[in-house]
């Protein structure tokens, strides 16, 4: 019983006790009186009955006051104190007790308050430390991610199951080059968080490399790495270096938990080395035979008894062979320079990019206005752009400082296997000797100095530089010869990646290390830990059975509870049938956009690979699945993985809502809609909605794949058969 409820009980009991005592005392006194005394006392008493009642009431009042004060001191205040202390403990840590009641109670309250203060400061301290630790972990993570994205080498980190935990953009581009369907899936079917590395590399190769790693670890090798070279399906030559990922040092003996693959595409290096070998061969062995012929013939000429006709023949042999040798050496020299200059790591870049960068540097660092003149936009060059830009800027700077040149122009034109990079100015003529000294002095621009000279930079490029004059125009220019390169496909859509992803590309997820150890049966797996492919299709119409076809597929991946926008799939599809012009209002896709796009027979295999080993998620999945299933016979590809439908799941968590359209759900869930009604836009909204649904399902006790499917089946909407 609470102190509050006890009070009225105690009060009524004590009043009853006082009244009973008085009544029984009066009764005993009355019984003790004889008749006569009673007769005397009665009139006295009865005339004072009011007074007596008042006395009783007074007595009661005194009793009530005493009892109440006792109750307050013994029960009510300690009770309240206990409750308040409980509040501090559980809900309101900042609350403090108000010292009331007896001196002891007050002292107790103050002690409790000091405990609370102490607890607060401890907690703050702990929070601060946690915050600091989190911050530094986050910082390290960012540093690592930044480092990874800057690396010019491909890096892929896998756990022991061969699942990809981390990769950089370079790796993504490289895998794209290896893809069977690079235009369609963009390599996304090969690389992605949680995907298996064995789709790219033979399992045995990795297993073998892992074994040799383990071996080296046991032998405590200084650098436990394993190397291998392999060819990919597309015929590329890859050199891979495998390094171990070990458990932290504190956990006793360090064991292998995964591996890092550093990949180099050496197809080109290999080709150029082979070419170099052939050249070397033709120079040495090719010339040995010729030299033998010459030497033998020359030695024959020493004989005095030689007939004139024979002498003539030997001379001819010498002349012919020497000519042939000269020709061979010329050819080799030309071919050799092409391969020799690959030794300094020059990068191939679009000439216009180099010129644009040179213009920016010149303008910002020398304050000389720069104009462009005749820049060949199709030209590719092979340069060490850092040193080359420095050389151009240095020359421009000296022109402005020493010859007061007020404007320079840049020109880039092709000239066979070289390119001409010209730095042009008009005005004062300068001597060639002056230029020679510029070329040989260490470069200096303002405060920045370099140990390199322009000559060093030129030699690094196996190029040349000279001063040339255009007398008719009263201009002069530095002509720098730099090697040109074969035009290549630009290292694709890096820009696109950054647009699509958020501030940082979502290429890493360390939590996957722990995931792989759990079971593989999807049914009993938690929704929060599964990998999903959220997708959407745009179609020519609503009836696949009447010939409507898919015209676009968009998809993205959810790995470890996060939508990985950078691992997206988006592809237009030629439906091979007429597209109703009205339908463009819905999806914004016109017939012209579909011309030349791949057909569904090419796109579905890529999408199938993209979605492999994941759970499919779509809004009104039944619709999209019907389109996919109608293609099963033609493509031989079955989409037989589990499917979840956000429409059905929304009905599970909000059975009383009228609308379960994607827009309506997104609005309810606070998902911001962008780019709807493109397949990828809708897939992304579906993914965001799905991520919000997962915790709401959990509140209803629906946590595993099986539970979600069963709940979805029970909803009204589930009567639509897949």
């Amino acid at each position, binding site marked *: 019983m609470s102190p509050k409820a006890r009070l009225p009980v105690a009060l009524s009991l004590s009043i009853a006790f006082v009244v009973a005592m008085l009544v029984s005392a009066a009764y005993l006194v009355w019984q003790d009186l004889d008749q006569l005394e009673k007769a005397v006392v009665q009139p006295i008493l009865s005339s004072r009955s009011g007074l007596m009642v008042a006395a009783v009431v007074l007595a009661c009042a005194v009793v009530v006051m005493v009892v109440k004060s006792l109750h307050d001191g013994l029960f009510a205040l300690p009770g309240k104190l206990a409750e308040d202390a409980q509040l501090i403990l559980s809900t309101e840590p900042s609350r403090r007790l108000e010292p009331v009641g007896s001196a002891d109670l007050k002292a107790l309250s103050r002690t409790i308050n000091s405990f609370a203060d102490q607890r607060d400061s401890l907690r703050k301290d702990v929070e601060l430390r946690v915050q600091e630790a989190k911050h530094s972990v986050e910082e390290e993570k960012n540093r690592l991610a930044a480092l990874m994205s800057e690396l010019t080498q491909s890096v892929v980190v896998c756990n022991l199951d061969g699942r990809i935990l981390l990769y950089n953009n370079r790796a993504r581009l490289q895998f794209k080059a290896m893809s069977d369907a690079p235009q369609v899936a963009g390599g996304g079917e090969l690389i992605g968080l949680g995907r298996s590395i064995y789709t790219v590399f033979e399992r045995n190769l990795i297993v073998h490399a892992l074994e040799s790693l383990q071996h080296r670890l046991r032998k405590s090798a200084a650098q436990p790495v394993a190397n291998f070279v392999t060819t990919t399906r597309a015929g590329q030559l890859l050199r891979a270096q495998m390094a171990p990922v070990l458990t932290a040092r504190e956990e006793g003996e360090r064991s292998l938990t995964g591996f890092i693959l550093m990949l180099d595409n050496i197809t080109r290096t290999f080709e150029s080395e082979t070419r170099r070998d052939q050249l070397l061969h033709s120079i*040495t062995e090719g010339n040995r035979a010729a030299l*033998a012929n010459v030497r033998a013939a020359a030695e024959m000429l020493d004989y005095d008894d030689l007939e004139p006709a024979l002498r003539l023949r030997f001379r001819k*042999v010498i002349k012919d062979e020497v000519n042939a040798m000269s020709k061979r050496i010329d050819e080799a020299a030309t071919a050799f320079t092409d391969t020799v200059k690959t030794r300094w790591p020059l990068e191939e870049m679009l000439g216009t990019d180099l010129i644009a960068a040179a213009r920016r540097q010149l303008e910002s660092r020398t304050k000389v206005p720069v104009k462009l003149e005749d820049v060949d936009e199709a030209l590719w060059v092979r340069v060490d752009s850092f040193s080359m830009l420095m050389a151009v800027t240095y020359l421009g700077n000296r022109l402005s400082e020493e010859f007061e040149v007020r404007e320079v122009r840049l020109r880039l034109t092709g000239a066979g296997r070289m390119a001409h990079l010209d730095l042009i100015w008009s005005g004062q003529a300068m001597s060639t000797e002056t230029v020679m000294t510029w070329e040989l002095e260490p470069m200096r621009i303002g405060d920045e100095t370099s140990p390199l000279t322009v000559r060093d930079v030129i030699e690094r490029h196996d190029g040349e530089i000279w001063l040339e004059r255009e007398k008719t125009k009263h201009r002069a220019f530095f002509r720098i010869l730099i090697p040109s390169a074969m035009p290549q496909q630009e290292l694709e859509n890096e820009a696109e990646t950054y647009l699509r992803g958020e501030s940082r590309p979502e290429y890493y997820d360390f939590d996957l290390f722990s995931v792989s150890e759990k079971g593989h049966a999807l049914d009993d797996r938690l929704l929060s830990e599964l990998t999903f492919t959220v997708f959407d299709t745009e179609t020519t119409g609503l009836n696949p059975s009447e010939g409507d076809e898919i015209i676009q597929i968009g998809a993205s991946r959810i790995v470890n509870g996060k939508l990985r926008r950078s691992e997206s799939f988006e592809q237009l599809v030629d439906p091979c049938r007429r597209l109703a012009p009205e339908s463009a209002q819905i999806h914004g896709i016109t017939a012209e956009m579909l011309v030349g796009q791949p057909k569904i027979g090419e796109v579905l295999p890529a999408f199938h690979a993209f979605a492999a080993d994941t759970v499919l998620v779509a809004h009104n999945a039944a619709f999209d699945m019907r389109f996919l299933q109608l293609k099963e016979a033609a493509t031989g590809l079955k989409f037989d993985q589990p499917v979840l439908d956000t429409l059905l799941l929304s009905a599970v968590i909000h059975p009383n809502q009228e609308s379960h359209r994607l827009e309506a759900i997104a609005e309810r869930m606070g998902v911001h809609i962008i780019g709807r009604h493109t397949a990828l836009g809708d897939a992304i909204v579906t993914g965001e909605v799905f991520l919000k649904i997962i915790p709401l399902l959990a509140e209803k006790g629906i946590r595993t794949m099986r539970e979600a499917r069963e709940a979805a089946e029970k909803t009204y909407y589930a009567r639509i058969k897949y």
Partner: protein
Amino acid sequence: MTKKILIADDEVNIVISLEFLMKREGFEVVLAADGEEAITKIREEKPDLVLLDVMMPRKTGFEVCQELRSDPAMQDLKILMLTAKGRDTEVAKGMALGADAYMTKPFSTHELVERVKSLLGLAE
């Protein structure tokens, strides 16, 4: 008795010198322009020594050498291999296949004559 030498090489420009040189040293000279011709001519003409170039059409010098050494009738034939390949692995191969001597192009004609003479037991 005049010793007979067969020169097997497809390069006319060396054959002309070798032929002149060998004739001048008093040998009888037979020519073959490829590996198969070399084998036929060796069987017909039974030379005492053959100057065998490694790189020849139809059959390489290695093949010719191997085929000759597998024939018991050819055990006395001296084989001097000539090659433009300077690698020691090839010298080893030639010797392993049964060549008596090996000379790498370019060689001194004077040394060649000495080697030929010593192989034929005519050394001064």
